[in-house]
């Protein structure tokens, strides 16, 4: 029993790191453009299909497909921001930006459905089935790699945000857009970059996920909606909170999956969500 709980805990932590990672992208975008990106998980799904194609057509190892998925998503997201989001954001139509991101979700999911049909697909990396042991606990190598990578990227992001000029301008905009503009920060450029980076890091998360997850056109939706739960849990717009919230939700999901009947697997996560809402409405780490 103890081993089972420990196993759940480890599994949940590693799953949760991915949830947190996905949410970080959302938080970045939310803080700088005030957009709740409903299409976030759909981009993750796109990244997963990119590494699937690369694997099937060119036999490229899933982890290497980061090198293609990241720039591809960066360019696509920049294009989307330039064509669709910026005209709306400039007029201050925040709700409409959300609606457009809902429309994007629709387009992306159905494009995947059109190209790949609704079949379940999976990618077999060399590491897919490998695992190692820490004491009595089994750890799957791909999960562990994902966990480590998320940690590294989170540190890099933290360094960019808190130690560089670019990060300074990002934080300035998220605190007070008007004042940041008056200080001579090029808002449009920073928003464009943050939007593109926020989505491009899905290009890292996707290849990390494919060795051990089933790819379907709707694979991303779960990440979007759990991402929103984490967003609220952490307090809207809190980056560190998003990571820790991700871990909490990951653990809750993993325990739910093990100890609850099938359909109720996601309930613990949402119950935590409601409890936090009732006792700490500003989020676990929210200031306001």
């Amino acid at each position, binding site marked *: 029993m103890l081993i089972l709980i420990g196993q759940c805990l480890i599994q949940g932590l590693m799953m949760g790191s991915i949830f947190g990672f996905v949410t970080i992208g959302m938080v970045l975008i939310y803080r700088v453009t005030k957009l709740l990106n409903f299409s976030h998980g759909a981009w993750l799904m796109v990244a997963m299909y990119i590494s699937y194609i690369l694997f099937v057509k060119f036999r490229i190892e899933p982890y290497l497909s980061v090198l293609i998925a990241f720039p591809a998503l960066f360019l696509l997201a920049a294009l989307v921001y330039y064509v669709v989001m910026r005209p709306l954001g400039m007029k201050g139509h925040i709700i409409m930006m959300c609606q*457009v991101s809902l429309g994007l979700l629709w387009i992306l*999911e159905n*494009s995947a459905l059109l190209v790949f049909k609704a079949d379940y697909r999976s990618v077999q990396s060399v590491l897919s089935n490998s695992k190692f042991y820490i004491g009595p606990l089994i750890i799957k190598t791909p999960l562990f790699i994902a966990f480590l990578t998320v940690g590294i990227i989170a540190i890099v992001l933290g360094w960019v945000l808190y130690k560089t000029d670019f990060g300074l301008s990002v934080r300035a905009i998220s605190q007070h857009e008007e004042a940041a503009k008056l200080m001579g920060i090029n808002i449009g450029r920073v928003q464009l970059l943050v939007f593109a980076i926020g989505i491009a890091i899905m290009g890292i998360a996707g290849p990390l996920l494919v060795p051990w997850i089933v790819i379907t056109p709707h694979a991303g939706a779960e990440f979007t909606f759990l991402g*929103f739960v984490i967003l609220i849990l952490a307090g809207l717009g809190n980056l560190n909170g998003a990571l820790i919230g991700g871990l909490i939700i990951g653990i809750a999901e993993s325990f739910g999956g093990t100890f609850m009947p*099938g*359909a109720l697997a996601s*309930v613990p996560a949402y119950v935590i969500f409601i409890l936090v809402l009732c006792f700490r409405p500003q989020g676990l780490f929210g200031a306001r």
Partner: protein
Amino acid sequence: MIKMQSVSRARFIALCMGFLVLICLPALVSPYWLRIFNFILMWTLWCTSLNISMGMTGMFNMGHVINIGLGAYTSTYLFLNFGISPWVGMVAGCIVSALIAMFITYVAFRYKIAHLAYGLITMGFAFIVMYIISAIPALGAINGLNIPRKNDPFMFLFGDSVPYYYIILIFAAGTIALYRVIDKQKLGIYFKAIRENEKAAEASGINILKYKLVSSVLSAIPAAIGGTFYAQYIGFIDPHSTMGIMLVVQMILFTAVGGFGLLWGPTVACFILIPLGEKLNSILGVEYSGAPQIIYGIIVIAVILLMPDGIVGWLSHQWSLYRNRSVGSDSLREIPS
């Protein structure tokens, strides 16, 4: 003034003509298209009810599916287990979903959950209700519930589409009338004041909580009725088809295309988009599943970009421009910017 009256009379006549056409419709179209019209009217009802809370009061209500699902599940449960007529069950469904809607609105208000966060909270509730229902065996769990097909008007069951058509026509017209009545009352002014600026509305003495509760109830009741209709018409409900989050996404997008906070917005959007989707589906759907939805999505984004107030908002803006020009230079100043 006289001109205004003639315009509103013309509008009234057009409305009557449209309604007359809709009444005669079952004699004019094939059963296939009548079925599509049933869906159009059902979606009109759902989107218009969403428009009351989201369009008029400005609550980003992602949990609207809860109302539909509870309406469908309450009446179906009472019908299957106790033999209670869905006509009665419909009322029970309205009560249940109104109570839940009030609860969610109250919780969100109590903890001062703002604009976008409100959308996320209601979405969370939608997921919770969906998961709970899909775990209750008495409600069919994940497999859903089947309603036996027979012809029994007292049990809200009919042999063919025509009676359903008239029923949903009345319900949809009733919802549009409800929207119109609220719009013209003081209540509508309160709702819009809350939408435009909550703090200012509160400062002017509007009881925000009270009117948000009223708004969510008024929006929940038609939705629950629509849910019962859905269950009785389709004959099958499951958590995903009645409470899935994509349902509310679609409602929001339809309403956005038509125009949020406009009386005819949802109706126009449903009458354009649903037949279009059906047509695309019959042309492309077999070989290229997903293609119709892509075209749909592109249309939605294009409309939001080019006409931020929706099709109806854009049309009425063009109309007012046109009218002001024809009256003469005197009223040119009134052109809305």
